[in-house]
C-alpha cells in the first residue's frame, strides 16, 4: 500500500422525485424505504464517505420539497453531501447550500451558461461547485477529438462539445470537482468507462468522481486504480442490497486501495 494518504471516497447516489426516492431501496428485512432522509441515514451508518442527491422533480413549483429534504438530511448526517438536478442559477445554488448541502452540482445549466460555474465559485468557493458531465462515446472528429461528447437533458441532446475540452474549461471557470457520468455505462452494471475516466482524471487538477456502470466491487477497484478516479459513485449495487458499503470497502482494502474504514 502507498504511504498514508487521502482515502478514495465511496459515494452512494440517491435519485429523488417530489421528495421521495424514485427507486425503492431495500434495507432491513426488504422493507422499501421511500424517504431519502432515512436512506441517507442508513448509508451514513454503513460508512458512506459522502452522499449525492439528484433531484429529478419535473415541475419547478415542487422544488421547495427538495429544499426541505436537504434541510432534514443536514440535521441527520454529519458527512458532506451534494445536491444536483434542476439547478439553473445562483439563487438555486444558494437555496441548496443554505439548506445545508456542502456542494451543488450543475450539469445542463453549465453547458448552456458556463458563467454559472464562475458565479457559484465566487459566491460559495470552488469546493462547493461540482460540474456534472454526462458523456457518450462517439466517433473521433475535428469537433470531438477525444471521441467523447457531452450530452445534456438526460442524454437526449448532443451538444457538439468535446468532453475533455469541457472538463478543462470547467476547471478554468472555477469548478472544484467533476462528477463524470458515462451514459453508455449507466445502469448496465458491467463496470465504469475506464478509458474515459482515466482521460479526464489525468488531464484536470481537480478531483474526479466516476459514475455509471458499477455492479461489483471489482468495478470500483478498476476505476480507482486504472481509471485514476478520486471517488466512485454507486447506486443499484447498494440500493438493492447486493452489497453493503462496508463490504465494498473491505474488498478495496484487500486490493490495497485505501478507503476510510473506521466510522
Amino acid at each position: 500500500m502507498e504511504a498514508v494518504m487521502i482515502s478514495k471516497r465511496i459515494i452512494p447516489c440517491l435519485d429523488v422525485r417530489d421528495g421521495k426516492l424514485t427507486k425503492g431501496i431495500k434495507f432491513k428485512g426488504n422493507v422499501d424505504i421511500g424517504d431519502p432522509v432515512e436512506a441517507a441515514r442508513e448509508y451514513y451508518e454503513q460508512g458512506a464517505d459522502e452522499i449525492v442527491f439528484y433531484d429529478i422533480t419535473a415541475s419547478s413549483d415542487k422544488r421547495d420539497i427538495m429544499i426541505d429534504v436537504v434541510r432534514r438530511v443536514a440535521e441527520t448526517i454529519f458527512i458532506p453531501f451534494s445536491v444536483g438536478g434542476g439547478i439553473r442559477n445562483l439563487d438555486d445554488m444558494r437555496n441548496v447550500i443554505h439548506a445545508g448541502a456542502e456542494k451543488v452540482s450543475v450539469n445542463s445549466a453549465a453547458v448552456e451558461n458556463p458563467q454559472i460555474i464562475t458565479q457559484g465559485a465566487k459566491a460559495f468557493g470552488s469546493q462547493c461547485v461540482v460540474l456534472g458531465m454526462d458523456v457518450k462515446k462517439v466517433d473521433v472528429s475535428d469537433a470531438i477529438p477525444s471521441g467523447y461528447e457531452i450530452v445534456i437533458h438526460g442524454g437526449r441532446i448532443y451538444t457538439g462539445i468535446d468532453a475533455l475540452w469541457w472538463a478543462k474549461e470547467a476547471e478554468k471557470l472555477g469548478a472544484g470537482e467533476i462528477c463524470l457520468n458515462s451514459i453508455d455505462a449507466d445502469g448496465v452494471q458491467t463496470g465504469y468507462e475506464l478509458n474515459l475516466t482515466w482521460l479526464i482524471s489525468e488531464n484536470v487538477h481537480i478531483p474526479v468522481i466516476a459514475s455509471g456502470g458499477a455492479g461489483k466491487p471489482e468495478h470500483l477497484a478498476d476505476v480507482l486504480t486504472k481509471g485514476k478516479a478520486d471517488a466512485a459513485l454507486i447506486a443499484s449495487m447498494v440500493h438493492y442490497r447486493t452489497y453493503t458499503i462496508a463490504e465494498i470497502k473491505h474488498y478495496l482494502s484487500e486490493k490495497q486501495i485505501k478507503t476510510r474504514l473506521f466510522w
Partner: protein
Amino acid sequence: MIAIIDYNAGNITSVARALQSIGQDFVITDDTKKLDAASRVIFPGVGAAGEAMAYLRQKKLDVWLRSYIKTGKPLLGICLGTQIILDYSEENDTECIGLVPGSTKRFPEKLTEGSALLKIPQMGWNSVRLLRSHPVFDDVSPAAEFYFVHSYYPAPADKEVVLGVTEYGMTFCSVLAKNNLVAMQFHPEKSGRPGLQILKNFCTWRPS
C-alpha cells in the same frame, strides 16, 4: 453557553447542526457583548482569508479574539478559522489575527505521492497523527479519518504547538494546540462520529 462566531464565512450552520445533534446549546453571533458572555467559543469558517479578515476587522472581531484568548476560556478553530489565527496567510497576501506565531501557506504546485500527482485542493478523508495526547481527542480512535477541503495549511513557527500532522504529499500541521486554544484544519462537523466526539470533548474541556 457556547458561542459560534458569525462572520459570514460558510459552514456556520453545519457546526450549529452538529452541536444540536450532541445536545449542546449555543448562540451564533458577531456581537462582542454576547461573545464576552460565552464560556467557550467556536471560530469556524469556509472561504478566502482576505475577505474573512476584512469582515472581522470591520466588526473588530480580530481585536476581540486577541483579548478573548487571554481570558483562558477555550477557543476552537476550524478550517479557515484555524488558518487565520496565525500571523499571516499567503491566500490573498493577508495579515491575520496573530494568536499563534507563524503563517498559512499554499500547498506546493506539484505535490506527489509515489508517481501520482496529487490534486489541490485536498478534498476528502485523511488521517491525523497526534504527536501527544489532548483532552479534545479523548475517545477518538487513531484509526479515525477526518474530512478535509483546503488548498492552504497552517505552518506555526513554534513546533511545540503542533498537536497533529497529516500526510498529503508532504507532512503538514493539521491540528494545533496552545494553552486554551485548539484548532484544526479538517471539519469535525462533517467527519462523522469521530468528528462529533471532538466537538463533544471541546464542550467539556477545561484547559489547565
